[in-house]
């Protein structure tokens, strides 16, 4: 019997390669469904999912909400800024109160790493991590791999470059786990001040020169500079960062071949990459967004089934 090896999606680190294959196979079907005239299936009728966002989000929150609605689940939305957390309620009290409303599944984003795992140990509901601090963002990594697979046919032995703010990035960490598991070669590029210590222990190489790194890669994933997480200065000036690590047409044209450009969003246009490239034929940024819905439908569908089999 095919099923996932986990009951909650906390991180890519907890998954195995068969889990990823099963999620992709299921997402293929959902991708076909979300391109039908009527895009909804009744699978999760009467299942209630709470989206608890303790941190701002546009894309991920909308994508999860759409995925849940396409599966016919009932959806509760919570954002920390409008909640009783402001009145001093503890996290676990907030969650237990929401669960008393008979919620089956929780999608959670939190600024602190480890919160989804902590909650999964305390409550019976299925937990999906929608990003926790600088730890993991598993559905983003899954949709990134899925989008690469869609463009290149397969991931194994492909050269994937992740550029930019690695130290603050949960997307980078989840992507490294997912890509390595699928047999890709991964390199990181950016200033040393934005590289976490010991990241090379994960089997990735660091290149500081972007032009050299671009020569090597098939796919480049440009990460956002996370100003909101920077409590000190990590590079001398934004202008200098753009000059050294910004992707532009001039840099790309030196390659004499096509590479795929990705970005998890939101893009700082003119910083990580120019507008011209963000909207070019090499960019699969909007495919990533479309695939995000299919991937999240697959994850929710498979985990919901897992819950009823428990």
């Amino acid at each position: 019997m095919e099923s996932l090896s986990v009951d909650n999606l906390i991180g890519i680190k907890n998954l195995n390669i068969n889990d990823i294959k099963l999620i992709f196979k299921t997402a293929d079907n959902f991708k076909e469904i979300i391109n039908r005239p009527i895009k909804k299936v009744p699978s999760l009728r009467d299942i209630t999912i709470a989206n608890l966002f303790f941190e701002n989000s546009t894309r991920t929150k909308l994508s999860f909400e759409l995925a849940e609605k396409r599966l016919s689940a009932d959806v509760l939305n919570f954002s920390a800024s409008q909640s009783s957390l402001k009145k001093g309620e503890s996290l676990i009290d907030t969650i237990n109160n929401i669960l008393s409303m008979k919620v089956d599944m929780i999608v959670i984003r939190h600024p602190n790493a480890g919160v989804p795992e902590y909650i999964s140990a305390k409550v019976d509901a299925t937990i999906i991590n929608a990003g926790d601090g600088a730890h993991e963002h598993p559905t983003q990594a899954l949709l990134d791999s899925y989008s690469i697979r869609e463009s290149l046919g397969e991931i194994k032995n492909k050269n994937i470059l992740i550029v930019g703010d690695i130290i603050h990035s949960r997307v980078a960490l989840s992507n490294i786990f997912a890509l390595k598991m699928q047999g890709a070669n991964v390199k990181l590029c950016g200033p040393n001040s934005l590289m976490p210590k010991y990241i090379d222990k994960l089997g990735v190489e660091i290149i500081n020169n972007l032009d050299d790194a671009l020569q090597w890669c098939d796919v480049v994933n440009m990460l956002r500079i996370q100003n909101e997480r920077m409590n000190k200065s990590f590079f001398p000036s934004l202008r200098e960062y753009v000059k050294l690590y910004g992707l532009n047409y001039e840099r790309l044209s030196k390659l004499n071949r096509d590479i795929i450009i990705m970005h998890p969003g939101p893009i700082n246009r003119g910083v990580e990459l120019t507008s011209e490239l963000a909207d070019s034929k090499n960019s699969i940024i909007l495919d990533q967004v479309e695939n995000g819905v299919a991937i999240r439908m697959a994850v929710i569908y498979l985990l919901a089934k897992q819950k009823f089999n428990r």
Partner: protein
Amino acid sequence: MGQHILFNHSQVNICLERLAYQLLENHDDFSETVLIGLQPRGRFLSENMVNILKNKYDLRELDYGYLDITFFRDDFRTKSDILIPNESNFKLNVNNKKVVFIDDVLYTGRTIRAALTAIESFGRPKSIELLILINRRYSRELPIQADYKGFNVDVYEDQKVYVNWSEKNNYVYLENIK
């Protein structure tokens, strides 16, 4: 667990010819018709129908696809196995078309119920008919009957009827599941 053959290759092929002919009687040139094989097993029967109609009756333009109904099933909460879908290749608009669902065995009727819901995602057909190779009588859980039937088969609940599809040897067999 032995296999007991109910209908052999030549019996199945005669039956397939008859079913194709019956379709032809009711659907003229098939210009308003869409044939839909229900995944996974109905796909083979629908391919056989399409082959006969194209090769023997020279129908070049046939609207045909196969549809997976996994996400429309009613046993998501009760079935212990994860329901893993099959591929759908269905891109046709069925608005105002005469749709024919094709499946190999009609048993409880629940697959057809799911297909009736699934097809709504592609428009509002003018009519929907059902073509099956094996009609397992006395086992329906829903008020669903086929318009085109191959063989009627009466077996016990703990027996399963399968169709083996291959170019050189199509046959129908019975297997005890206990």
